[in-house]
C-alpha cells in the first residue's frame, strides 16, 4: 500500500514537472475550449446545447491526452532509461506498477476534465452533468481503450517516436472525431472517417452521459469495448515482448 501511494505520488510529481506532458494534456483542451466558444459565439446563442456538446468533446480530449502521454510516452521513457528494468530487481510488483499508473491517470484526467468543466460552468453557462455518478463511470469506462492504446504505444516504441506518434494520433483524431463541432453538419467523408475512430464513440458516450438518459451510452460503450479488446491485445503483446523477450 505504501509503495502504491509513493509510486502514484511520484508519478504525478514527475508528470506535472514535465511541460511536454502538462501542456498538451491540460492546457490544450482548455485553450481549444475557450477558442471554440469565442469563435462560435453565434452558434452558442442559437444552440443552447452546443456548450454541453463541446464540453463533452473537450473532456474526452483531455482524458485521452492524459492517457496517451502518461502511458504511452511515460512507459516508453521508463523502458528506455532502464527504470523498469531496475524495478524488476526490487520487490515492487507489476500490480503496484499498473495500479499507480491507473490511479495517476484517473487523478490527472479528473483534473483536466474538472478544469474545463469549471471554466465552462463559470464562464460560459454550461450545465453540470445531469447524473454526476453515471457521468464519471461512463467517462472512466470509455477511457479504457485509450489506456490500452497508450500502453501499446509505450511498450512498442522508443520515447522520441512515442511523443511524435502520440501527438500525431491525438490531435488529428480529436478533430476527425468531431470533438469541436457537430459531426452531422460535417462533410460525408469526414463522417465516414469519424465512424472508424474510437474517440467518436467515446465523445458520444460522454455527451449522452451528461444528459438525462446516461444509460443510452451503452451502445457506444459496447463499440468501445471492441476497441478495448483490440488494443489490449496489442498492449499485452508489447508488454510480453518487453518483459520476456528482453529478459532472456
Amino acid at each position, binding site marked *: 500500500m505504501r509503495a502504491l501511494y509513493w509510486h502514484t505520488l511520484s508519478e504525478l510529481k514527475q508528470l506535472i514537472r514535465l511541460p511536454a506532458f502538462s501542456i498538451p494534456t491540460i492546457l490544450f483542451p482548455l485553450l481549444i475550449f475557450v477558442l471554440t466558444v469565442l469563435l462560435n459565439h453565434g452558434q452558442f446563442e442559437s444552440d443552447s446545447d452546443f456548450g454541453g456538446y463541446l464540453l463533452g468533446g473537450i473532456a474526452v480530449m483531455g482524458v485521452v491526452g492524459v492517457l496517451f502521454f502518461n502511458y504511452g510516452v511515460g512507459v516508453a521513457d521508463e523502458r528506455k532509461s532502464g527504470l523498469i528494468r531496475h524495478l524488476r530487481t*526490487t520487490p515492487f510488483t507489476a500490480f503496484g506498477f499498473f495500479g499507480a499508473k491507473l490511479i495517476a491517470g484517473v487523478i490527472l484526467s479528473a483534473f483536466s476534465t474538472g478544469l474545463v468543466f469549471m471554466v465552462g460552468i463559470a464562464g460560459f453557462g454550461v450545465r453540470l452533468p445531469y447524473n454526476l455518478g453515471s457521468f464519471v463511470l461512463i467517462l472512466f469506462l470509455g477511457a479504457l481503450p485509450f489506456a490500452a492504446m497508450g500502453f501499446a504505444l509505450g511498450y512498442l516504441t522508443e520515447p522520441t517516436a512515442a511523443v511524435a506518434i502520440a501527438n500525431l494520433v491525438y490531435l488529428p483524431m480529436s478533430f476527425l472525431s468531431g470533438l469541436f463541432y457537430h459531426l452531422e453538419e460535417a462533410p460525408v467523408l469526414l463522417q465516414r472517417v469519424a465512424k472508424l475512430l474510437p474517440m467518436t464513440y467515446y465523445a458520444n458516450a460522454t455527451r449522452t452521459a451528461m444528459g438525462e438518459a446516461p444509460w443510452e451510452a451503452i451502445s457506444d460503450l459496447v463499440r468501445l469495448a471492441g476497441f478495448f479488446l483490440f488494443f489490449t491485445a496489442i498492449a499485452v503483446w508489447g508488454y510480453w515482448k518487453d518483459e520476456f523477450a528482453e529478459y*532472456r
Partner: protein
Amino acid sequence: MSETIVEVTGVVKHFGAIRAVDGIDLAIERGVVYALLGPNGAGKTTTVSIIVGLRRPDRGTVSVFGLPPGHRFVRERLGVMLQDPPLPNLLKVWEAVELYRSYYSKPLSTTQILEIAGIVDLRDRLIARLSGGQRRRVALALALAGDPDLLILDEPTVGLDVEARQSFWKWADQFTAQGGTILLTTHYLEEADRVAQRLAVIAQGRIIAEGAPAAIKRHKQQYRVSFQCAQPLSVSLLESLPGVVSVDYLHGRYTLTVLRPEPVVAELFSRGIATDNLQVGLLSLEEVFLDLVQGEG
C-alpha cells in the same frame, strides 16, 4: 558461520552467436566483498544480470539466499546498482529515496541512506540537475534503500570521486562486518585488490582465476626483484641467474621477474654486484591479471 549467499553453477549464456558467459561457477560467502574482475566485454555484467534475475541463463543454475534469482524474498533482501544507473530524473533526491524505500518492508531510514551515500546536501535537488558523480551516489542510495543483505554493484566506483569512494568503502567495512555481502564488478585492479576479500578474474566468459587477491598473486609463484646499479650489467648475465624468468631495464633500474627471490638476491651479493635501492615483492595484481588475461587470449 560460513553460509553461501550466491551460488552459480555451470552458467552459460549466449547472445546470438556470441558466448557471453561460458560456464561460470561461483560461490559467494556471507560477509565478504567479492569482486568480479575483468576487461570490458569479459562477461561481468551478463553474469551480474543473471544473478539479479534480469537474464535467464541458457544452461546452469543460480541460487541467491538459496532461492531462484528474482524471487520476491530475494528481491526484498537485495540492493542493486546497475551500470549507467537509471534514475527518476524529475524527482528530487529525497523523493526518489522515499519512493524506493516504499518498495521494501524494512527499509533503512531516509537520513541513514542519505548519510551513507554522502548526499545529505543534495536532498532537495532535482535528480536531472545532478552531475555524473552525484547521480552515482543517488543510485547507490537507492540500492541501499531496502537495508539489503546482499548488495550487487556493477562498476560502482566509475565516476565516483575519491572522497565518495572512501566514505563508501568505510561504510562497506561495517556492512560486511555485520554480515552483509557485496558483489561488485570492476576493471580497477587496484580497487579490487584493496577492498575485496575474494575475487574472480573473468576473461572471455570464463573464470580464469579465483580466490583471495593475495592467493591469486601467489598463484603465479613469481616475484619481482628490482634494483639500481652504478656499474653497467649485461642482461644475459642477469638472465643466467637461478630462477630468472625475464629481465627489464628502464630508467637506470633493473627489474627481474623470478620464481623465488632469495637465491637471486644471494647470487647478486655473492658476485659482488653493488645493488642500490633493492626491492623485492610479489607481482602486483595488475601484472598477474594482465598475464592471465593475455594467457587466455
